[in-house]
């Protein structure tokens, strides 16, 4: 006999002929319409010709990597009862301290979570977002709520998990993602990828979505559906990001989403401004050269002992840029990294340890990594791989340290384009807000 808690707030796929255990509700899997079918898990429509199995049965190809949903199945579901064991005090075991500005934002976030509002926390890169949600989570746990923290990126989940284990040491936390073999277990706090949210059904009283924009092309509609699906009807939702996309900003403008800003970094400085320079670099690169402006800029950083990251659009650009720069900077130590580089972690660690003067990289280092005191250069920032949010994230690698809160951020483009303009505007917008706060603080002093 399976523990009923397995079904709490979830949709569990079973064979349609299986006998129904007592206390379990059965939900349908697929709505068969005249020309297409709709999946009750991912809400996607599929033409009958594509979704057809023999004998007039159908399946959903969209969410198949979560386990195939078909007319041969049914879902088991038990409405979320919030049956958690009492937690040993204190709930919050984090002993860090928030800055007054962080404290204020943290309080607002917690109050909105208590009212189950839908809200956006727009905090600049390096603002300390994670720590600002601790108070809200602790209060929700105290109220006996079920809480989910989800991100489109597995990396983000994997990074969050140990930090939350430390911050909520007495609380049981479940971690769910596609590459995991561990069986599911019922816990008051769940960390998972946004994809995994589709397995839940009206489970969470509060849901936090971290780095919402991590996949710029991720269909906002399906994310919105997954969120709605996993939340209780009266559940609250907190989106965390440094770079909200158009869909979220629209929600804010239409006042469907409350917003809190944190336009200053934890060290209280503004974001480094983006400089854009027009250069013809692709043609020069064919002749193993780069425009003089670029070389001079990089040279300046090196002479001043400022290490830097040089972003290039594609993996194939890495080697030609590397060879070219070897001729220009024979005395300096540098390397290239990309997503499938087997030595990726080692190289990043070497950069951290100061063994390299600079790294040439694709957009994989756009978020989640911190090197202190660096400059940031982007070759071909106008190419399609760099979305505006990627560029804001890339720019956000500079000036993260208290010891050097500024840094050069230069985008080299061969033509002006929308993403670059939007990224510049977003940073300027947050800096204007940040400057206002700094002015208020200085008036008070």
């Amino acid at each position, binding site marked *: 006999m399976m523990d009923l808690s397995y079904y709490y707030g979830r949709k569990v796929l079973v*064979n349609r*002929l299986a006998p129904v255990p007592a206390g379990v509700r059965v939900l349908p899997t697929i709505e068969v319409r005249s020309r297409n079918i709709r999946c009750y898990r991912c809400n996607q429509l599929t033409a009958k010709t*594509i979704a*057809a*199995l*023999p*004998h007039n*049965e159908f*399946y959903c*190809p969209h969410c*198949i*990597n979560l386990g*195939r949903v*078909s007319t*041969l199945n049914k879902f088991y579901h038990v409405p979320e009862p919030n049956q958690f064991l009492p937690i040993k005090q204190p709930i919050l075991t984090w002993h860090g301290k928030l800055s007054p500005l962080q404290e204020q934002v943290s309080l607002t976030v917690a109050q909105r979570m208590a009212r189950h509002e839908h809200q956006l926390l727009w905090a600049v890169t390096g603002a300390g977002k994670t720590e600002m949600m601790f108070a809200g989570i602790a209060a929700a746990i105290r109220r006996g709520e079920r809480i989910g923290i989800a991100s489109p990126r597995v990396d983000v989940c994997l990074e969050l998990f140990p930090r939350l284990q430390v911050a909520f040491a007495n609380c049981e936390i479940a971690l769910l993602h596609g590459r995991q073999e561990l069986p599911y277990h019922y816990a008051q706090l769940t960390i998972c990828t946004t994809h995994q949210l589709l397995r839940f059904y009206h489970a969470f009283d509060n849901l936090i979505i971290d780095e919402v924009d991590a996949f710029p092309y991720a269909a906002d509609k399906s994310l919105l559906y997954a969120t709605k699906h996993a939340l209780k009807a009266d559940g609250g939702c907190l989106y965390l990001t440094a770079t909200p996309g158009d869909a979220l900003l629209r929600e804010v403008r239409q006042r469907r989403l409350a917003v809190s800003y944190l336009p200053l970094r934890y060290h209280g400085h503004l974001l480094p401004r983006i400089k854009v320079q027009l250069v013809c670099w692709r043609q020069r690169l064919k002749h193993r050269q780069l425009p003089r402006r670029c070389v001079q800029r990089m040279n300046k950083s090196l002479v001043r002992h400022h290490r830097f990251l040089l972003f290039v659009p594609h993996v194939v650009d890495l080697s030609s840029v590397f060879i070219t720069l070897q001729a220009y900077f024979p005395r300096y130590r540098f390397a290239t990294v990309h997503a499938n580089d087997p030595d990726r972690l080692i190289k990043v660690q070497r950069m951290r340890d100061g063994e390299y003067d600079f790294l040439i990289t694709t957009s994989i280092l756009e978020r989640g990594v911190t090197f202190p005191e660096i400059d940031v250069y982007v070759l071909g920032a106008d190419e399609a791989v760099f979305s505006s949010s990627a560029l804001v994230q890339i720019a956000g690698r500079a000036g993260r340290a208290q010891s050097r809160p500024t840094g050069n951020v230069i985008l080299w483009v061969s033509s002006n384009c929308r993403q670059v303009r939007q990224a510049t505007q977003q940073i300027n917008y947050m800096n204007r807000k940040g400057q206002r706060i700094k002015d208020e603080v200085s008036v008070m002093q």
Partner: protein
Amino acid sequence: MYGWYLHHHGIYRYNSMMKEYMRRYKFDGDYRLRKVFQCEFSTYIRQIPTDYIVPIPITTTTWQTRGFNQVVGLLREVPYLTALQTKIEKKAPQSSKNRQERLAASQPFILKTPAKFKHKKILLIDDVYTTGRTLYHAAELFHQAGGDWVGSVSLAR
């Protein structure tokens, strides 16, 4: 051991790519993927001279979970015969049977109309040939029914 030899053709090697394909097609149940090899596989089968083409069947349980026969899925415009049927799996433990019973019980298929195959050529179709156990079991039935020639084709070996 049987007194006859099964003429087998395997089109592709069962390497890691093919294993990955089979995992997604059969075990994840992505029926759309039948189309990847359908045309090529069917063309190959059509050029083999034979009287009957017989795909290896799947069990009732597989019909209830997977919902399709992965072998039949690979066939397009191939006139095939569902001559084989899987036996109902018995719950009696193997240890309770003697050797004769075990050998008899290990035959997983039933041939529906044996008379039809006397002095005929039969081509068996399967998705993957590993030990050949399954195909030999099936072939045995056609030989017993008096078939002249039994061959087999699989997508991978």
